[in-house]
């Protein structure tokens, strides 16, 4: 188990470095930079003039952000800063360290993501189970038709539909705000509903596979009902493939959901992330990209570890290793 973990962590670190390198290259290759984003005129003094600061200050800024150093030095400053959690300050929000931005926005995004995924899973399980138990029946076909519709609808469209229904027509729920619990209902549903489509289809298929396996016949032969076979036996084994899908999805939501944040005016990470990319805010781009990479990598590790929780064969094999 320890060896498995050590090897996985080593791979993760290598992947992390590769991602940081690629992000850095792409970022540098994108035309323009923060300090001359809108200026084609060369020379520090010209840019400085346009900002209304003296060339000396501009020089100091460039030095402070290591913009004149070789690329690998710049790259290493970002990576080192991220790894030690001593990140630089943002270009866009001068005086604000990127770690502060992440500190405030990330927990919010994580909370939103967890609520959305939990809601999605909770809705998807009964749908998937109902469909699987009536394989190819009208209930199955009907539910899977709606699931397909759900999958095809993007979150922002769902958000707009929900706003129209619950806020404009029924006046039941608020659209803007993030302080009261009811403020979260619409954003969470907007994120959860499109997920329900994919998850319930996935669960249905893997549950049907399980229900066709011999051990389910074994349960029936003992006098068990189909629903016992599902809830006590097959469902647990079918959740395993679903975890593989849910993990990365959760990671994606945790690092911000631009559309939903914009629609509901929420202070999530996606907002800063996209803003940073638009204005070439190098430190914030790097740090948010690295955070994204870390969350995805950690999530994949977590998914693999969860496998052991669900499958005793992996767990016991781990005990030996």
């Amino acid at each position: 188990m320890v060896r498995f973990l050590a090897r996985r962590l080593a791979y993760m670190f290598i992947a992390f470095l590769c991602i940081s390198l690629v992000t850095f290259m792409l970022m540098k290759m994108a035309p323009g930079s923060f300090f001359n984003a809108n200026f084609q005129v060369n020379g520090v003094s010209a840019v400085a003039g346009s900002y209304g600061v003296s060339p000396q200050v501009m020089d100091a800024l460039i030095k402070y952000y290591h913009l004149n150093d070789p690329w690998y030095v710049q790259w290493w400053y970002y990576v080192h800063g991220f790894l030690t959690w001593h990140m630089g300050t943002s270009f866009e929000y001068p005086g604000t360290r990127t770690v502060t931005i992440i500190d405030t926005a990330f927990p919010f995004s994580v909370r939103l993501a967890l609520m959305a995924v939990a809601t999605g899973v909770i809705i998807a399980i009964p749908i998937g189970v109902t469909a699987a138990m009536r394989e190819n029946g009208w209930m199955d076909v009907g539910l899977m038709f709606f699931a397909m519709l759900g999958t095809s609808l993007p979150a922002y469209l769902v958000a707009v539909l929900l706003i129209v229904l619950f806020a404009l027509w029924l006046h039941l729920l608020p659209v803007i705000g993030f302080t009261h619990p009811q403020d979260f209902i619409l954003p969470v549903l907007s994120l959860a509903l499109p997920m329900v489509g994919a998850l319930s289809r996935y669960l249905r298929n893997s549950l049907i596979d399980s229900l066709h396996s011999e051990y389910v016949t074994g349960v029936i032969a003992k006098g068990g009902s189909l629903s016992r076979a599902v809830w006590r036996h097959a469902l647990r084994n079918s959740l395993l493939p679903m975890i593989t899908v849910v993990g990365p999805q959760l990671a994606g939501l945790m690092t911000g959901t631009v559309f939903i944040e914009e629609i509901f005016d929420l202070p999530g990470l996606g907002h800063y992330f996209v803003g940073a990319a638009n204005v070439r805010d190098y430190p914030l781009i790097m740090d948010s990209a690295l955070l994204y990479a870390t969350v995805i990598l950690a999530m994949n590790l977590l998914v693999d570890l969860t496998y052991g929780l669900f499958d005793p064969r992996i767990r016991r094999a781990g005990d030996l290793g």
Partner: protein
Amino acid sequence: MAALLEVRNLAVEFHRDRAVSRAVNGVTLSVERGKSLGIVGESGSGKSVTVKAIMRLLPRYARSASGAVLLEGQDVMRLSEGRMRHLRGRRMAMVFQDPHAYLNPTKTVGSQLVEPLILHRLAAGAEAKRRAVDLLRLVGIPSPEVRFTQYPFEFSGGMLQRVMIAMALIADPDLLIADEPTTALDVTVQAQILRLLRKLKEDRGMAMILVTHDLVVAAQTCDEVVVMYGGTVVERVPSHKLLTASAHPYARGLIACTPRISNADTIPTPIAGQPLNLREPLPGGCLFAARCPDRVAQCTEVRPQLEDVAPDHQVACFVAAGAAKEGAVHE
């Protein structure tokens, strides 16, 4: 004595992808309390489908077209699924061919073993565990308390088959159906399992149906044997006569191609031709006619029915039945 289980003219068809496969075409058999019946036949002869149909464990695309399965006079084919559940595991229980496939890999053996007790509200908690551990000991599993908490993958095939047998017996069924219980096991383990099954059957006074493709196993383990071909019963014979005095040409063919130590120098002769293709419409006459060495004109026209050739010995063959009648006349 009335039979515990009586199957009358059972037929099962599989409808899939617009193709029909006629797996069982009129099987009649019966088992009395405390007796054991062997069902033998080659692969595809419908023996496994027959016993699964008795337990109503066939997939949904299987249609039991006709016939009756009477458990103490009650037709289980006409029971609701809820009533059927009360019978499965309690009145009749099943041991399957591949124990590793028929147990949930992610639950402990113990939790699956006590399930029939819980499902039929016979016992729960510590009492269920005590009974399960006792039964594990009875079927010959060392350190049953430890084994109770282990997972199926931690067992060998033979040990896991003992668990399956314990699981089938835990609710004290009247009828135990063993569907090729030793096919997946090696020969030494096979003998142990069969001995165990025979002993348990005798100690508990239950009836047993043993499905096997091995005639010697059937003859040694059971009181009576039915031979199946093409989803029909072609012979019903007391087991002591199976190897020496079977009358149907197919049964004799099976015996001729079974290698045995007692006649080690004779080379087994295979039965000519191919098994019946059950996806095509069935031939009008005897299903075995195309491969039969003793075929007469009548065989391809009329389907022979089971006829008595001796006490407790019936054959579905014109030639064999005719010979027996002649023999009786001469005596």
